[in-house]
């Protein structure tokens, strides 16, 4: 499903190489985790895949079901099925959460040539999904992420994911800033979306999140490359021994 080949990326504004040849394939129905120390390029990978400005791809490719993601605008990638759950969800004063969600859902449907959801159908769907994530009506009415707690922001990301039903979910340190209960809630939300047709790329520092979202494959990223790939046990190894051993072994 998601195929990344020899991806090299540098910052547009300065001549600094961040990704130095990433190779990664995420199959439909699988959950891949990427772990790695600070500054290894994990977040950059998520931004490059979702189309954020400021990065220049100098070599390599990234495709989703054969479509070249790197040629697309961010909204086209979204319509093609890419979803990025932000590490720091953005507050947008003046835009209602509900309006935002409905605009996004219908924009994607329109881009795919599908019929737009009616107000009533949308409302029914969003209410049901919000309830499972313990998002109350008040949160839906408030401006996007404004005044939300850390946990509420992350649950709101998962709600968006649930409404947009992407093929490829990229989660950038979704566990950061969450207490144990909030993390469980978020993980339950994600697990409910696990599906044969959907791939996940879960970026995290800690093994903790992976207790709740069980990965099929774990990658270790360091200095802009994937340096080691293994099963769920690899995450435990990191948790017990830190990154130093693995990095020493690779070098």
């Amino acid at each position: 499903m998601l195929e990344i080949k020899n991806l090299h990326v540098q910052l547009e504004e300065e001549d600094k190489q961040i990704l130095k040849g990433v190779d990664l394939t995420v199959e439909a129905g699988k959950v891949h985790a990427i772990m790695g120390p600070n500054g290894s390029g994990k977040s950059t990978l998520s931004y490059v895949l979702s189309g954020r400005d400021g990065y220049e791809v100098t070599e390599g490719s990234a495709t989703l079901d054969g479509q070249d993601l790197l040629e697309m605008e961010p909204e086209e990638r979204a319509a093609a099925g890419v979803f990025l759950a932000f590490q720091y969800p953005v507050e947008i004063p003046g835009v209602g959460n509900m309006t935002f969600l409905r605009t996004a859902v219908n924009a994607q449907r329109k881009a795919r040539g599908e019929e737009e959801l009616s107000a009533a159908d949308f409302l029914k769907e969003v209410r049901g999904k919000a309830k499972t994530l313990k998002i109350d009506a008040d949160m839906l009415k408030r401006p996007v992420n404004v005044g939300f707690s850390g946990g509420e922001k992350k649950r709101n990301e998962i709600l968006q994911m649930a409404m947009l039903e992407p093929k490829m979910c990229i989660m950038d340190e979704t566990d950061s800033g969450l207490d144990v209960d909030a993390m469980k809630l978020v993980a339950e939300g994600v697990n409910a979306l696990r599906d044969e047709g959907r791939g996940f790329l879960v970026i995290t520092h800690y093994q903790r999140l992976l207790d709740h979202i069980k990965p099929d494959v774990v990658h270790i990223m360091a200095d802009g490359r994937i340096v080691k790939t293994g099963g769920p046990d690899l995450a435990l190894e990191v948790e017990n021994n830190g990154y130093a051993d693995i990095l020493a072994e690779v070098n």
Partner: protein
Amino acid sequence: MALPQAKQTATEARLAALTMPDAGCTRGAREDALARVLESGLPGRRDEYWKYTQPDSLISAEALPAAVFVNDEPVLFNDLDRLKIVFVDGVFSAEESDELSLDGVKIDRIEDICCKDIHWAKDLYGVLEARGQSPVQRPLAALNTAFASDGVAIHVTGKPSKPINLIYRHASPTSDAILHHVIRVESGAEVTILESGPAASRFNKCMEIEIADKGTLHHVRAQGRDHERRAATHMFTRLGAESVYKSFTLTANGVLTRNEQVVELTGDNAVAHVAGACVGDGDFHHDDTVFITHDAVNCESRQVFKKVLRNGATGVFQGKILVKEGAQKTDGYQISQSLLLDDDSQFLAKPELEIYADDVACSHGSTSGAIDETALFYLRSRGVPVKDATNMLTLAFLAEAVDEIEDNALADEIVSRLEGWLARRS
């Protein structure tokens, strides 16, 4: 003191083109106003108060022509039950207006009160305008008082069941209109005044509003989409104890607009909110000049002005809060912000506070910026196309000003106009 030669010449040229109406009970006020004009002269480019806005086309002897714009949108406020008072190129149209009768208000034309020796409006006509000449001179308002050819006097004694809509229709490309309205809201009375339309090629409008204790006046205005029209408007408002004044203005297009609001809080616990949203393109120049005087205890004032500018448009904000000695517990707030959609547009702001009381809370802020790139990416990453996302963020920027309108139906009408403006330019 003699005026500088250029100012003297310009003032004389403008006055030569005007005739004072036969004025009855407003004669004294008109003659006094003319004396003020002669003393101060009309505004010139070198006047500090006109530093950011060129007054030349507002004071020239003849108005510059302005093509009549045919609006393809539905008529504003058309779905609301309202009392219509229509002026075509600044002349009252009995044909297009409703019967000027409504429970709780008495409406007279200025022309009619001019025939009378005694009328309530005599104590208001030109009075607040004259008070508003200090500490800053406003010669275009004095000119208006002296030469206004039409307008209405609205006496609000109760709570009329529907808003009063002053509708200004621009019909001739060379029209030059001077309108003067006076409104008195009696104790405990409440009214909503709507104004809509571009009025004329050149429009000088003055409105004097006196709100007695516990009275309330809501004002919502939309200045029309005429591209070439020019307008200078003044609103002078004096508030009694526990009275409320809330005013909102939408300006979309118009080559030159100067809207002055002069508000005096003279009774304790009074509340005054003035807000504006403007959207402009190209050679658009829009100036909000506000002067709020706190002269009583425990009063609240709010100024919220938002401007969206693109393709070289210019926005100006001059806003002052003056807190007089003894006006303790004043709560004053002022925010002026611009959203610049490109590098060619500019926003010029001069926020001022002058405070002589020691127990007050006053704040002001002014910002100028572009669309927030992070927010834009967030919306796009959810599938919202870049133009729609930009429009959503632009409307969100304007929302704080539009939110000042209390009535939801009116606010929705204003939002629909803003959406229309954005859609036409996407």
